[in-house]
């Protein structure tokens, strides 16, 4: 089987499976009273996460960003009108190309005011049962996952022990990424469906902090692949600005561009967001798992390599 350089990468099976997943996902959320919405792909603001790189465009004097996820706009909408909403859209992340990554990919993202992260893990599991096939889900905390795989207690060990342990599995480990390295190594070994919950604060992103002092966030893993992640949304506007500042400090230390705080989202949080949980799921990876494909380009019409 050879394919000409101009031809699409995926076969008819992937086109049809994608169409079916889009149909079934909409049916799933519509039946549960979620409203399908659309928010901009192009914005004046973007995520400040030090490990997310946005595509930037210039618009006259102004700078615009392609959205790395629809999170900011969806939360502003929710702060105004709290109701369950979902969106199926493209997201863009610079420099992310690999067998599980394409710089432009499809996200299913949904939010439910009043829902907890355990409600959301349950709903995510149900959605995956519907779109893939029914399967059993295990739950494990971030802390116990690292303890099981690396014999390390991240709550009590000091930074140098952490970095040393991370170096054993990844040569590039340092104080900024030791936790990621340990986590990635542990996750890549997991088989079946596993929900990892309760992330340490440096990996909180925009999750609220739970009573147990860890970020109320989860990742849904299937056979070592991160398929979805969700959290109890951070409501505190001051804490939001503090995390953006903190991200910018890491950005500065690493020589990355400064990202302005999204003052519209900050104002929305100030006006009051109802306690809400949200989840983002990678549709292309779901399709990979459904069709048993090894690389994301096999489920895309045209990937980063052939677009």
């Amino acid at each position, binding site marked *: 089987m050879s394919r000409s350089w101009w031809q699409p990468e995926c076969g008819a099976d992937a086109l049809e499976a994608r169409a079916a997943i889009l149909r079934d996902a909409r049916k799933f959320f519509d039946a549960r009273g979620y409203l399908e919405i659309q928010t901009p792909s192009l914005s004046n603001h973007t995520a400040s996460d030090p*490990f997310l790189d946005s595509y930037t465009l210039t618009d006259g004097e102004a700078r615009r960003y392609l959205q790395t996820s629809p999170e900011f706009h969806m939360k502003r909408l929710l702060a105004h009108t709290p109701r369950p909403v979902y969106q199926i859209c493209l997201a863009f992340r610079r420099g992310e190309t690999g067998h599980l990554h394409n710089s432009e990919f499809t996200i299913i993202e949904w939010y439910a005011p009043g829902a907890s992260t355990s409600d959301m893990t349950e709903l995510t599991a149900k959605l995956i049962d519907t779109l893939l096939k029914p399967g059993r889900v295990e739950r494990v905390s971030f802390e116990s996952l690292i303890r099981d795989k690396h014999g390390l207690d991240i709550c009590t060990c000091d930074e140098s022990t952490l970095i040393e342990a991370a170096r054993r599995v*990844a040569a*590039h480990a340092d104080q900024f990424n030791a936790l990621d*390295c340990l*986590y990635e190594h542990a996750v890549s070994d997991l088989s079946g469906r596993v929900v990892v919950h309760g992330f340490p604060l440096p990996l909180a992103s925009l999750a609220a902090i739970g009573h147990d002092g860890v970020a109320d966030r989860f990742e849904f893993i299937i056979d070592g692949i991160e398929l979805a992640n969700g959290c109890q949304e951070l409501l505190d506007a001051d804490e939001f600005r503090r995390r953006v500042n903190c991200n910018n400090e890491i950005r500065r230390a690493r020589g990355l561009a400064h990202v302005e705080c999204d003052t519209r989202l900050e104002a929305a949080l100030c006006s009051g967001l109802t306690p809400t949980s949200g989840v983002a799921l990678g549709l292309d990876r779901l399709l990979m798992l459904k069709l048993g494909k090894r690389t994301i380009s096999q489920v895309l019409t045209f990937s980063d390599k052939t677009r």
Partner: protein
Amino acid sequence: MPNISTNEFRPGLRVLLDGDPCTMVETEFVKPGKGQAFTRVRLKNLITSRTWERTFKSGESLPTADVREVAMQYLYFDGDTYHFMLSDGSYEQVEVDAATLGDAKYWIREEDLCQVVLWDGRPISITPPIFVELEVVQTDPGVRGDTATGGSKTAIMSTGASIRVPLFIEAGEVLRIDTRTGEYVGRAKG
């Protein structure tokens, strides 16, 4: 040589790692959850032939290695080193020590064409022709009906190599040998 960054890493790329020239066998982009992206690379050390795995932060870079593979003719052994000459008409010569030549010394004869890997102009590995024809200098006379040894015996070749041959082979015969496995293929034709 220029440095090359993680986003240009690809199989086949030759780089310097810990001072040794290596070739990339496999590269993989990894991004753990909300964490920092990195590239996992499997590399083969071109000197030791050992393969190992390393991870690199996105944006990290490695110096590329000046490694090229050339065809060279084996000229002679001066009692200390082996002399090879570029077969492109330049008559440029290099000397190879016994350690670098390794097992290839058991297969090559003068004028044989070998593949030589040069790093900064210095030879680091020599691959003999896949098939060579060598003369048997010593082997026991064949014993008819002796199957206890699996129908084969040892023969010493003109280069000093010792190989297993069928019982009917006699000293003075020229044999065709597969240098990848060191196995007897047949009698040389003509």
